[in-house]
Structures are given as C-alpha cells and as structure tokens.
C-alpha cells in the first residue's frame, strides 16, 4: 500500500481559498491529501502554525496567498514572502526537507492552477516519504 | 502609393442622385443581403466605402455597379438608412457620364433641365425638318406608296444615318468603359483569343438578362425581357422592313403582327414602369432621377404615336397619320439620339459588357481571385475585410 501523505494547506480567504472553491465549482479533480485551513490573509499564517502542523504529523504544508500586488489587504502577501525564507532556514537546520513546506500564489481565478498544484505537491511529498518530525521525540525516547 | 482621399466626391455623386452615403458605418448587412455579393465584388459595401472615401479612380474602374440590379434588399436591410441600392444606381449614372467622352451625359445628369431642353430642341428640329421635307417632297394626304408624304425609302436612309451615329457614339463610350475597367489594368494579360472566346456573353446577356433573372424578385426580369424583345423586334422591323410596315392600307400580318406585339410590349412595360415610379412601391422606383422620367415619357410617346399613326393610316386618315408620324419622329430621334448614347438607355449596352468584362477579368486573373459563379470576374481583392 502506497504512502498517503497528509498535507495541511493554509489558504488566504480572498484569493487562494476562493481559487480552491473555483476548482470545486469547476469540478476539477485533484488528490485528496490536502486539508485546507482558511485564514483571512496569508500574513495571518504564523510560522508557528506551520511548525505545529509538522509536529502534529503533517508530511507537508502549503501556504497560499494572493499574487504579489493583488493582496486584498494591499501588502499582506509580501509579509508572508519575507517570513518564508527564514522558516525554510529553520526547517533546514532541523533536518527537515524544505520541499515539505511550500509558499505559492493562487488567485481566485486559478482553480486549475490550484488543482495542479495540489497534485504536484502531493506527489512531491509522497516521494519524500513520511515526515521525520512525526513523534521524533518519542522515537528517540524509545531507542534511548 | 497611397491613394488620396477626396471627401468632395460624395457631393459630386449627389448630383447623380446619391444620398445618405455617409450614413453607412460598414456593418455589412447590405452585402449579406445581396444575392450577388461575392469576392471580388462585395456589393454594395465596397462601392459605398470607395465612394465615402472618394476613391475616384477605383470607382471608375469598378464593374460592380453594373452587376447590381437594384432589387433593393440592401436598402431594406440597412440599419442606418444609407440607401446603398440608390447609391449603386447613382454610381451607374455617374459611370455612364464617365464613359461618355462628349460630356453630354454628365451635363444631362448634373442638370436635368439641360437634358429636357436638349430633348425639346432636338424634337422641334426633327419636327420642322420632317415637316418641310415632307411638304416639298410629297403630299400630306398620302401616307404610303408613290409621293407619300414621308416615303419609307427615304426615311429609311435617315434611320440608317441616325443608327450609324448613335452606334458610333455608343461604341466609343463602350470603348472607354473597356479602357477603364479592363484595358488600363496592367495586371491583366488578355489575348484576342480570350476576347473572342467570351464574346458570346454579350448577346447572351443582352437578350436573356440572365443575371437579373437570378434576383429573388422575378418581376423586374420579366418586364425587362418583354421590353428588350419588343425593342429588338421594333429595331429589326424599322431597320429592315420599314417599307412593309408603311405599306398598306391592308394589314400585312407577316410584319404587322410583330409590330403590334412589340408595341403592346413597349406600352405595357412603359406603363408599368411609370406606374411603379408614381406609386413608389418597389425599392428601385422609390427615388426617381429626372432622367428616368424623361426616358420613360419618351418611350411612352414613341410607342403610342407609333401605334396611333398605324391605326390612323389603316383607318384611311392618312393626313392625320402623317402628322402623328412627325410627332412620332420628334420623340424617336431624341430618344435614340440622346438617351441611347448619353443617358439611361445606354445601360442596355453597359450591362452585358460588364458581364463580358467581368468574365474576362476572371479569366485573366484566375490565380488571384476565386472564380465566382456567374459573373466570375475579378479585380485584385485588396480589402482584408470586405
């Protein structure tokens, strides 16, 4: 039985979440591995959320917001854009493949793009295998 | 080399009866409605455009107006009331004036009074001429035979001279038409052979009016056919059997049957045409140019006086018949002398010619333009959209 990755997606309400809705209303099929959590703006996405998701057993995390320049709150997505590289540094240092966490821009009209993105990311994470974060502590406790 | 736009041309065309040309905004409904609109003759839209822009040379060398028979569909479909049908009509008048080297028809079309005066003058001269001539050659009470007031043999000579004159005029104008539409087009490569091979088209279309018969509305075609045949019959009778026609008093059915039939045909068609123009039912009768009226009236007079003198002669009133004869000639001479080469009547020559030339063009440029079904004709298709 193949490994089915669990991916948590944090989507901004105005562009990406609406884009996901569009994928739905257009009946575009995509992989069922993504679990979407809505936030008003990608700038609301505290890196803690991403780390929390990984700690809770997510194999991948998707952060999606409006395209730069299109933010409903004028510049929220730039704030997200600034956090992302630091977050990746942190993950890298903790020995977590940075591909597990992706920042993407999806507009309200990009239902297709969103579906493709989910499929592509699902395969990417599937290829990486289960997240090393999953209950890492417990494992070490056991082998100690 | 860019063509110079000439906004004044429209004004010139207005003298020929064009109106509302500038209303057209090229939606193309007219050409969609026209049964003949087909590359390279996008009728009437491309002509409308050339006219709006005043592309004089282009219009001059355009056969399009002659390929339109004014069924009126275009005007009916026009959302802007730009009267494309009437524009085509006025273009035919304008072209007639263009083909005519004497400038007479230009004068006629631009100012109908001139035409009227010309007709009256010619009529009076003819009247006086024939009166004097008759009086000093024969007896006013004798219609035919020896010392007839106007002996057929001599009138015959006059007819031939007149025929000769107007034939020359007409031929020269036709020559000019050829030059404008075919001759001067350097892209055309035509040998004598081509001209001969297609020559049959002229009589064919002259007699059958084939193209007109392709219009959805058949009535105009039938009238034209009747008119053409009657006219033709008359022409032959007058040219070759004038003696027999004048002879009498007993009726010689071998000729008179034809004569009477032709007269009826002429009277009938003239009557219907006049009625149409008065009632303005059909599109082609809605806007009449003064020249149309004059032509029809002349035709009516000619036909009626013709039959009148005939009846009077057969009923033994030779003197009255002779008077009627003079009146008859007073109408015949201006009609043939003025209308045929310089005015409306000339289209009977230009239309078949147009079909002929169109076919020649199509032959000459098969590669450049899809050969349309009759008339398969062509000029370089320039417009990307028309």
């Amino acid at each position, binding site marked *: 039985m193949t490994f089915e990755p669990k991916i948590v997606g944090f989507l901004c309400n105005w562009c990406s979440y609406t884009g996901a809705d569009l994928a739905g209303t257009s009946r575009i099929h995509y992989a069922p591995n993504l679990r979407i959590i809505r936030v008003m703006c990608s700038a609301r996405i*505290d*890196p*803690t959320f*991403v*780390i*929390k998701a*990984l*700690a809770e057993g997510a194999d991948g995390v998707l952060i999606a917001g409006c395209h*730069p320049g299109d933010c409903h709150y004028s*510049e929220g997505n*730039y*704030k997200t*854009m*600034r*956090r992302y*590289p*630091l*977050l990746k*540094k*942190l*993950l890298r*240092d*903790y*020995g*977590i493949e940075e591909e597990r966490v992706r920042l993407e821009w999806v507009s309200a009209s990009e239902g297709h793009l969103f579906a493709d993105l989910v499929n592509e990311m699902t395969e990417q994470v599937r290829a990486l295998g289960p997240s*090393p*974060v*999953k*209950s*890492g*502590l417990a*494992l*070490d*406790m*056991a*082998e*100690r | 080399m860019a063509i110079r736009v000439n906004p004044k041309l429209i004004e010139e065309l207005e003298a020929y009866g064009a109106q509302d040309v500038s209303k057209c905004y090229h939606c193309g409904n007219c050409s969609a409605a026209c049964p003949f609109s087909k590359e390279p003759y996008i009728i009437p839209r491309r002509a409308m455009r050339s006219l709006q822009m005043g592309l004089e040379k282009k219009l001059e060398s355009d056969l399009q107006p002659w390929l339109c028979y004014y069924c009126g569909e275009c005007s009916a479909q026009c959302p802007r009331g730009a009267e494309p049908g009437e524009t085509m009509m006025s273009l035919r008048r304008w072209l007639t004036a263009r083909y005519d080297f004497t400038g007479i028809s230009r004068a006629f079309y631009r100012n109908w009074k001139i035409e009227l005066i010309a007709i009256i003058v010619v009529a009076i001269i003819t009247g006086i001429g024939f009166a004097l001539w008759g009086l000093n050659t024969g007896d006013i009470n004798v219609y035919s035979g020896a010392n007839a007031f106007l002996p057929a043999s001599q009138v015959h000579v006059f007819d031939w001279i007149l025929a000769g004159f107007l034939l020359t005029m007409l031929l020269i104008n036709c020559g000019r038409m050829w030059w404008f539409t075919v001759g001067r087009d350097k892209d055309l490569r035509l040998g004598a052979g081509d001209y001969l091979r297609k020559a049959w088209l002229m009589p064919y279309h002259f007699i059958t009016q084939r193209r007109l018969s392709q219009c959805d509305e058949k009535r105009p075609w039938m009238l034209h056919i009747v008119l053409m045949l009657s006219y033709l019959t008359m022409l032959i009778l007058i040219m070759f059997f004038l003696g027999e026609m004048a002879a009498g008093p007993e009726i010689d059915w071998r000729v008179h049957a034809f004569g009477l039939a032709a007269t009826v045909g002429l009277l009938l068609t003239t009557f219907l045409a006049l009625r149409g123009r008065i009632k303005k039912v059909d599109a082609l009768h809605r806007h009449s140019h003064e020249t149309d009226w004059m032509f029809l009236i002349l035709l009516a007079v000619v036909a009626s006086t013709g039959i009148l003198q005939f009846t009077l002669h057969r009923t033994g009133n030779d003197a009255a018949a002779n008077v009627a004869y003079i009146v008859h000639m007073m109408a015949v001479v201006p009609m043939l002398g003025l209308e045929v080469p310089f005015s409306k009547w000339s289209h009977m020559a230009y239309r078949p010619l147009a079909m002929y030339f169109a076919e020649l063009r199509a032959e000459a440029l098969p590669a450049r333009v899809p050969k349309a079904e009759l008339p398969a004709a062509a000029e370089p298709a320039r417009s990307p959209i028309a």
Partner: protein
Amino acid sequence: MPEKLQIAIYWGAACGGCDVSVLDTNEFILDVDALCDVRLWPIAVDGKYKDVEAMADGELDVAIMNGAVRNSENEHIAKLLRQKSKIFVAYGSCAYMGGIPSLANLTSRDAIFETLFMANPSIEPGNRTVPLPVSKVGGHQLELPRFYERVYALNQIVDVDYYVPGCPPVPSQCKAAILALVQALTGQAPAPPKGAVVGAFERALCDDCPRTRTQEKKIKRFYRPWEIMQDPDVCLMEQGIFCAGIATRSGCGVRCPKSGIPCRGCYGPAPGVVDQGAKLISAVSSIIDSKDPDEIDRILETLPDFTSFANRYSVATSLLQRSHGQ
C-alpha cells in the same frame, strides 16, 4: 522556627554557571544555609549518590536541578531527585529548555563524536576512540554514562514543578525564586501553580528595555554587534542588530541590551508563546524592508546561522522534534 528544609542542588548537562549564580546571591546563601539542610550539592558540599538513593521518597523538600539531560547519568539522577523530592525545580535555561547544549540536537551523536574524537587534530591518530559505555583499562572494567542521541530538557524526562529560566538566572531572581519556594513550603505564601515559571516576569523583554523604539523598524541589512557603531538609546532591532528580546521573557533586568549586547533569549519564550523560534521568524521578517524575493534573500544573508539565534536556548523544547534514531 520549624526544622530545616531538606534541599538538594544538582547539575546535569550544564556549564556550572547556574551553580555559580546561586553562590552569586552572596550573603543570602547564609540565610539559605540557615533555613535549609543541603543534602546534595556537588559543587559546594560533599555528598554521594548513594546517600540520595538511601533517602525515602519525598524526603527532600526541594530538588533544584540545573543543566539538561545529555547522558544516562543525568537521567538517572534527575529521576532519582524527582523521586526523593516534594518539589522539583528546573533551574536555568538548560534544565528549562535544553539550553545551549541542546543546540547539539541540530546534529547527531555520531557527528559529534566524529568531530570531537575521531577528526580532532589534537588527538594522536593511534589513540583515537569514542567514549564507550563499557571499556577495559588495565584489566579493569571502566563504565561511562551512555551518551544520548539528543539533549533533553528536564520536563521531557521527569515531571517538573517549577521553572527558573536564565543562563544563568540572575542572582536577584534566584533569590526571589528560592524565597517563593521557601514561603510556599513554610505556608507563609500560597504556592505558585504547578508548572509556573518563577523568578521571571509575565512580559517580553522590551517591556523593561530602556532603549527607545519607533514605528520605523525597517532595515536593509542586519549587523553583528561589532559591525556597527550603535546608538546606545535606540532599539537594537531598529539598528539592524538581531535582538531576541522581543520574543523573550523578561526578568533578567535587560542586562545584555543595556550593555549593548543583543538579547539571545535565555529567559525563554514570552508567556503564551508556543515556539520562540517560530515567533522570532515573523518578528524579524517584519522589519525587512523589501518586496523583492532576491533582495530579501540578500538581506537575510547578513543574518547568518539564524536558527541558533532563534532557538539558541530552546532547541530541545522546540515544537520541531526530528527523530535522530533513523
């Protein structure tokens, strides 16, 4: 005056600074001595593990342990003290969050051994060996504590009652913490809720920082403290010097920033913050003045080794716990 409180002070994986910080309370130490019997404090008084093992459970009133758990000995004593004490206090950043030693969690035991013992140029190639739990030396069997794959904060090994943060806790806070415990135990004051952080405040460092802050926190590059002539009165962050104070619990008296040294976060996350490192990410990125991904990267290059800034003392307790085992 009730009979003396029974206390033990012990160090795990630590530098010793915590023990010194207790001594730094100066004459207060005499009050402590007057109040308490110190049953175990390797750095100050004599005492044997077996004495502790001999105690009855809960015989100790307070066990104060500093340092993290790095090896089997640390774990053994931690569990032992927990078992024998009424109140178990994690003292100092290492005990509280893993501290500096837990930066080792970013790598693996093998890598550490390799660097320390095998690839170490100061060791003769012939004698190179790694610490073994059991080894024979001159016919004698020598046992060493087992070196764990990772470093653990105390609460990951045993149940901790109170935490005293700091690297080391400043004497004033040490004093305050001990007094609080004593008063609780002697019924003079209500005991702090279990799991409470004692000897620190309930807000982030900025609250006590004398440096002025403006709205204009916008920087085009970061500076290490020695790279720039700093304005002593202006927020270090605003001068481009990465200071963890914004995400660090106050209590230290803002010693570092006051002396021109940026805070490194030894007092741990501000109350209510789940992950100090994660919070520092969004805080720090908020002051980067650029909308262009490439420029942002360039600016961040001026902030090397970000993780050991963000989680300098808290790798062990960070939410991210990658398994080293496999």
